[in-house]
């Protein structure tokens, strides 16, 4: 039997993905659970496992192609089931000889009639007997509305008309839309991300990667819908610096890494526990604030392809060392492009640790639908006044941005004060 394996819906609203690498060829055998293909979606790079054991009969799509959820990936010849015989028409089912049609010659001059065998009959129907109408399952695969002339134009340009946004009546793709789409970029989806075209004047046009597309979309939504408000602070953390330097050798001996970020995650998680509005989100459709019980801290990680934000779940319940290990694990996965959907789901607050590269203060943009984001700047030695005397202080710059629709200035600064308190005196986090 042939089984067509389609690109599955892997959740998170993903509708399309790009083929990065095939693990199978036509004719190769595959076991259930073995990876079939490596797909890049706008969230992750994921291996798609085979649901069946068998032989690959057909492979659809080439490396670099962008395909939609439910498009076929491969056709698998399933072992132990005869290929050609599996025709799913009732009359065609393999059956004992008595079920085969025979010809009845009783009618002489009026012809010969085929007669169904004893065991071969069509499935029955319910129509006209009961009044209950069965709800039909509807699929929503987007197919473009377009006139033949627009379709012909798209075909000539090598564009997939289903990907061109239509501006005509009822969302119809017009000739103008096709021409406009072509001007923006030629064959944008068919080009691998690394393929850039250089124009005669030296301008380089590079199609967006899936990740970059997602970032662009999210940042636009955030800035256009959320009124951002930012507060900046400097916190003196010599106690934390000293504490960390005492613990660090022990961690390093075990091949682990104890970063300041781990302390910051813990401090934020504990502060969120006390200031739940910063861990909430606004639901405009319901005119409601949704308070989230789980405190899941997203960590913004810079990669070659762009920003990814893996999540540390229930950070308020984790020890600082467990958080440190988790951060290291996520950073490795991010750089190897091995993050899975589950690693990215469900964040309720984000920390961006840009200071690891440089910069003191910034105005971070909220990761929607979250309520706030904390930016951590570069740790610097600075003169500070302590008990009337100028001493050398270890100063960590903090930048907090909140969604001003649900968080006011008072709560913002109280929350920030709480974080600073934990960072100034890390022993408070133990209590």
């Amino acid at each position: 039997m042939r089984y067509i394996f389609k690109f599955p819906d892997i959740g998170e609203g993903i509708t399309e993905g790009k083929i990065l690498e095939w693990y199978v060829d036509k004719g190769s055998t595959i076991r259930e659970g073995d990876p079939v293909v490596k797909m890049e979606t706008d969230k992750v790079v994921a291996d798609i496992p085979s649901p069946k054991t068998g032989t690959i009969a057909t492979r659809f799509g080439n490396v670099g192609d962008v395909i939609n959820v439910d498009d076929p990936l491969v056709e698998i010849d399933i072992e132990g089931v005869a290929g050609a015989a599996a025709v799913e028409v009732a009359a065609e089912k393999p059956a004992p000889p008595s079920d085969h049609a025979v010809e009845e010659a009783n009618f002489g001059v009026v012809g010969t009639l085929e007669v169904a065998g004893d065991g071969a009959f069509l499935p029955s129907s319910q129509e006209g007997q009961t009044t209950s109408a069965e709800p039909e399952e509807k699929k929503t695969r987007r197919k473009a509305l377009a006139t033949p002339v627009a379709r012909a134009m798209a075909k000539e340009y090598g564009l997939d008309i289903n990907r061109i946004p239509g501006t005509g009546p009822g969302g119809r793709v017009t000739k103008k839309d096709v021409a406009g789409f072509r001007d923006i970029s030629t064959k944008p989806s068919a080009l691998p991300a690394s393929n850039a075209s250089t124009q005669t004047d030296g301008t380089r046009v590079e199609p967006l990667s899936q990740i970059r597309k997602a970032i662009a979309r999210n940042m636009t939504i955030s800035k256009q819908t959320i009124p951002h408000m930012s507060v900046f602070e400097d916190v003196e953390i010599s106690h934390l610096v000293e504490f960390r330097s005492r613990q660090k050798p022990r961690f390093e001996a075990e091949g682990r890494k104890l970063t300041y970020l781990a302390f910051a995650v813990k401090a934020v998680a504990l502060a969120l526990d006390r200031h739940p509005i910063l861990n909430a989100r606004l639901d405009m459709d319901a005119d409601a604030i949704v308070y989230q019980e789980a405190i899941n801290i997203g960590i913004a990680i810079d990669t070659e392809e762009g920003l990814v934000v893996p999540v540390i779940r229930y950070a308020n319940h984790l020890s600082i060392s467990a958080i440190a290990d988790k951060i290291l694990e996520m950073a490795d996965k991010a750089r190897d492009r091995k993050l899975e959907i589950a690693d990215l789901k469900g964040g309720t607050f984000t920390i961006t640790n840009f200071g690891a590269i440089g910069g003191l203060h910034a105005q971070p943009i909220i990761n929607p639908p979250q309520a706030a984001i904390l930016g951590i700047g570069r740790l610097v030695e600075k003169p500070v006044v302590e008990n009337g005397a100028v001493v050398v202080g270890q100063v960590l710059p903090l930048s907090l941005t909140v969604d001003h629709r649900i968080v006011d200035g008072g709560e913002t600064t109280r929350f920030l004060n709480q974080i600073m308190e934990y960072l100034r005196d890390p022993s408070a986090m133990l209590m």
Partner: protein
Amino acid sequence: MKVMNLVQAINSALDIKLNEDPSMVLYGEDTGVEGGVFRVTEGLQEKYGEGRVFDSPLAESAIAGTAVGMAVAGLNPVVEMQFSGFVLPAMNQIISHVARIRNRTRGKLTSAVTIRMPYGGGIRALEHHSESLEAIFAHVPGLRVVIPSTPYDAKGLLISAIESEDPVIFMEPKRIYRAIKQEVPEERFTIPLDTARVVQPGEDITVIAYGAMIRECQKAAALAKKNGISVEIIDLRSIFPIDRGTIGASVKKTGRVLAVTESAATCGVASELVTIATEEAFLNLEAPPRRLAGFDTIMPLPKGENYYMHEPARIFYEIRQLMDY
């Protein structure tokens, strides 16, 4: 429920209506004593007597003409033309009277006659025994034209036809008279006369057919499935009026349409289906709608019949053409 073939399902419908409608009469050539050349009316004369189930003279014009008179006088005649090719002498009665008594009397009288006839090729008979004339009837205003493709539909549609206030031309695909069996309720049920049926849902292409061609389309769809093409098959069932809604919804979804008929291509039912699909789903079409209709020739003698009749491979070829456009 009882397993029936088309012949038995039609017989069951006639039996039920004769039993519950005392105004119904059933006649045609050999329909009485003999039970019809295809045994469709077998046993009915014995059961309901010579007064209600009887043999007519070999005169099709008289069969149709007397039926008009009986209908106007309040009876419910169900008549049989032995083969659709034999109906031609009755065409004047059918077009001039059966189809237009209601209009001519400004709605005072109706001639709700049901005219049954086996039609279509594939049984290696002579050309008058194998023709498909449904387009000729569908072109005449005032007639309903119905063609079943399964025993279940045959029974439900024929009961509706006999009960209809309109004259109905009920054409029976004799090639599958005994070739398809299905569980059919023994009791009375009806299927609306003007609805098409989605035989199997699909995503990539809509194939519209009726009668004996449904089975061939199912075989072609199985071939297509092996090639990764998902075919939606629509059984038209009512040649007039045509269920535009079902066709429109399907073609809007798939974007491609193939109409398959045994009858000749020019000015035929397939042309009508292509027109309707285009009108209903113009903006969704991804390829020009195609017709796979009969050749514009007289139905060949048995020796040449296999060249004329559409086989699954030919239907699949058309599906491929649409997919590769």
